[in-house]
């Protein structure tokens, strides 16, 4: 490095005029070793032996030290001894320095008494009055020329040495500065690169010298908002490193798992792959941001899960278990992104994965929405200050998603119920008109001027969900409608089915209104359709028959207990009364003929006897239908009317 500098800092070494002459060296040897005359073999041998002995001693010393491995107490003692020695030396040095200081002070006190007094020891001040020591320049006796020449040579040597040392220092400093500049340049370039990417770079509030990058979310819960700031440190070589403090730098994410029928059927994937320490600074910032977001998400999920424990949601330290609907269960947990997710693949269904991924996205979108709501709330004119602190309501993250799942499950159930029932009716060749389903028929909210479209969109998802089913029945002008409301945000929680009928034939039939159990709904609808079938039978064999045969006009099935599905054939001359019982369920429609002995045929129970050829006649929807050439219900009914 030093070579790259061309600064002429080093002193130019003059070539000596001539090397030391031989006489000089001889004189030196004479001085050092004595005269050559005294050198003989014995002296040299002695010298060699002496030196060997010295070396040997040293070696012995070393080997001794190695051999006698002092145990700990000895070592401690030795340590103390050495320390005492060091202290002693230090104190001695200190004392000598103090003496020197006193001496110089006393000497100077002649010239500058005020300044010198400050550095004098108290003892000296007592003993010697100020200015009692003086120094004078004494003319030294003239030195011989050789001495002056020596002094000149020595001082020249000193100077050169010092110049060299100074030059070395300067060059070292220069090279150090150069590396420093290079690494600073790199650091600032990287900081600028970060800033150019659009990250907010600022000074740290606590550590004014350091730079920080803000990647967190301003509207997050304060704990997580404050964590969204990391300092940008400079490594030794100027590389930028992100210092997030005490937070684990591991990337984590909220994993959504869907358990169907007790088996894992889907799991969400991390949104971003991890970086194994060699990612760019941008990647690191992104990862830190994601992790902060995920951790906040989980924190809020747990907070909300506790609030909705009444829905059966349970929380453990790192797991939220949500029973969603039927056999569906959802698990939420916070895991490392690089956690080995080697799950048995055979259980994973595409639908489960879709659900898990969808849920994962939903809760993240909802958290972002809550952030926006926080901003809105924060920038409103604050309400008057009261001693009570306002608690922050839990964000709606799980509830809307859960409501959606529950709602969809209920809608599907109702759809399948209606499909089954209408299938049964169709198999009996009754022709019910189709029903219409409007899933998510929630009215569109009026577009408020201030909220952006995205927020309105998400806001709609948070409103209670509504689906409606409308349909006509066999009875003319008869209809039914079912509205399914699902609301988990405000009481009453859960799903309600609002069932209403319109049966002109039975005007006093009241609509069941709001029902919350599926069994009740099934019973209500089945009952309605049963009434419908009974009414159809009783009305159907009215009209055509009367035209066909006047005599048979009276012989019609009359709905006697429509709510039980019972019809009565009015008695003719000698015949016994006949009774028809219809049972409708979502699986089948069955019909049985009884003979009744009671007089008016209205009695039930004991006096009923299954008729001679009566076998309950059943109609089932096509897949299970056993008898392809079954007569339709109406045909069957008309055959039962004796002519």
């Amino acid at each position: 490095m030093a070579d790259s500098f061309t600064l002429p800092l080093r002193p130019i070494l003059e070539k000596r005029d001539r090397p030391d002459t031989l006489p000089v060296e001889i004189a030196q040897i004479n001085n050092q070793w004595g005269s050559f005359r005294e050198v003989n073999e014995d002296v040299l041998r002695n010298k060699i032996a002496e030196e060997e002995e010295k070396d040997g001693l040293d070696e012995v010393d070393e080997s001794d030290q190695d051999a006698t491995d002092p145990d700990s107490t000895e070592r401690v003692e030795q340590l103390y001894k050495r320390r005492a020695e060091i202290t002693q030396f230090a104190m001695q040095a200190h004392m000598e320095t103090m003496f020197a200081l006193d001496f110089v002070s006393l000497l100077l006190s002649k010239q500058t008494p005020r300044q010198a007094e400050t550095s004098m020891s108290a003892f000296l001040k007592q003993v010697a009055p100020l200015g009692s020591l003086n120094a004078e320049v004494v003319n030294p006796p003239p030195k011989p020329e050789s001495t002056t020449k020596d002094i000149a040579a020595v001082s020249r040597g000193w100077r050169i040495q010092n110049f060299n040392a100074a030059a070395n220092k300067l060059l070292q400093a220069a090279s150090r500065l150069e590396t420093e500049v290079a690494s600073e340049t790199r650091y600032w370039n990287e900081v600028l690169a970060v800033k150019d990417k659009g990250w907010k770079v600022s000074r740290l509030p606590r550590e004014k010298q350091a730079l920080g990058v803000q990647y967190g979310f301003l509207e997050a819960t304060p704990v997580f908002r404050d964590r969204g700031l990391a300092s940008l440190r400079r490594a030794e070589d100027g590389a930028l490193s992100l210092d997030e403090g005490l937070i684990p730098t591991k990337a984590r994410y909220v994993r959504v798992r869907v358990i169907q029928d007790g088996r894992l059927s889907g799991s969400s994937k991390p949104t971003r792959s991890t970086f194994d320490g060699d990612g760019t600074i941008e990647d690191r910032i992104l990862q830190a941001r994601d992790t902060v977001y995920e951790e906040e998400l989980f924190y809020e999920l747990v907070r909300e899960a506790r609030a909705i424990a009444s829905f059966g949601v349970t929380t453990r330290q790192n797991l939220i278990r949500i029973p969603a609907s039927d056999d569906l269960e959802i698990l939420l947990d916070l895991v490392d992104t690089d956690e080995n997710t080697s799950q048995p693949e055979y259980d994973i269904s595409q639908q489960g994965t879709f659900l898990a991924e969808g849920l994962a996205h939903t809760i993240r979108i909802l958290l972002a929405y809550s952030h926006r709501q926080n901003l809105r709330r924060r920038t409103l004119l604050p309400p008057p200050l009261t001693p009570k602190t306002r608690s922050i309501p839990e964000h709606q993250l799980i509830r809307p998603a859960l409501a959606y799942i529950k709602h969809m499950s209920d809608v599907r159930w109702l759809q399948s119920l209606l499909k089954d029932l209408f299938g049964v009716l169709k198999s009996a060749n009754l022709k019910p008109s189709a029903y219409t389903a409007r899933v998510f028929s929630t009215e569109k909210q009026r577009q408020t001027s201030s909220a952006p479209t995205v927020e309105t969109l998400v806001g709609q998802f948070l409103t209670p969900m509504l689906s409606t089913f409308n349909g006509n029945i066999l009875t003319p002008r008869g209809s039914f409608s079912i509205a399914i409301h699902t609301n988990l945000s405000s009481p009453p929680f859960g799903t309600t089915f609002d069932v209403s009928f319109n049966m002109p034939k039975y005007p006093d039939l009241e609509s069941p209104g709001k029902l919350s159990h599926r069994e009740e709904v099934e019973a209500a609808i089945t009952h309605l359709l049963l009434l419908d079938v009974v009414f159809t039978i009783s009305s159907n064999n009215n009209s055509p028959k009367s035209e066909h045969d006047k005599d048979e006009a009276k012989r019609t099935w009359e709905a006697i207990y429509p709510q039980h599905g019972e019809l009565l054939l009015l008695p003719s001359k000698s015949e016994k009364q006949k009774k028809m019982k219809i049972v409708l369920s979502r699986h089948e429609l069955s019909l049985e003929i009884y003979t009744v002995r009671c007089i008016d045929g209205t009695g039930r129970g004991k006096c009923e006897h299954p008729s001679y050829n009566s076998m309950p006649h059943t109609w089932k929807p096509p897949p299970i239908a056993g008898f392809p050439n079954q007569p339709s219900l109406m045909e069957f009914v008309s055959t039962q009317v004796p002519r």
Partner: protein
Amino acid sequence: MHEQSLFASVPVHQHHELLQQLAGLTAMQPRHCLERRLIFKAYRKPGLAGRTGASQDLQQGDLQRLNKMLNGNMYYTQVIGPVSELDFGSTAPVDHDTQMAGMDDSKPSGSPSPSSYDYERQPWKLEFRDIPEAGTRSAVTSRLMSSATLPRGDVVQAMNAWGYHFTTEYVVEGDMFIHNDIAIFLHRVLHYPGDESSLPRRQLPALKDMTLFEKSGSYVLQAFIIVQDGSNQETMKTASQHLFGLREQLKSAVLLEQADRLSLDTRAK
């Protein structure tokens, strides 16, 4: 309710910079506000004062309170109505008959069409401010306040019925920031061009025709907290401490201080 506030004067050249500083401090974009302010003066209805007939049912304390109310100080009050920039210099809306009934409800108030100002649909708010409390040791301006929403449209009749005369009106233009509990309002007062009228204007002149009340165009920075219960010393203290905290934070930009008590006197003499 009590209002605690601190004030500062902001010269016009500092305005833009301060807006940015406040936006940074409060982490929000300034909310631009334009407000019509009508000043009403209370007057004593002739014959009402001192008459306390049919008072046999009243308790002594109630009687005193009633007397105090009837004979006490009279105050000026303000009626504030938010307006938008589009309302200025616009024409009156088209005839109501040509509009379909119920149309107004479906649209945000005040702007049935982009360039018309409908005085009849102007929302109003009544704001009462007492004279600041005297002799408080705290270095903030603290005063009793109250506000109430008024019916839309013409308020003069209602106010007359309550014993208030319309005095004058002006417009306040400014930006609002919220910093935790503190509302920060950086505003200035605009006067209407032309003569004083005896009734509130039904149309607003163009904004550029409005004249500045303070000729240099400087702004007033008001930071205030509203406290629900003024008798609760604890909350009052918290509020003033929050204000002092803000004063410290803004120290290098503006100097927030207590206002002169008598300059905020709302009593009608």
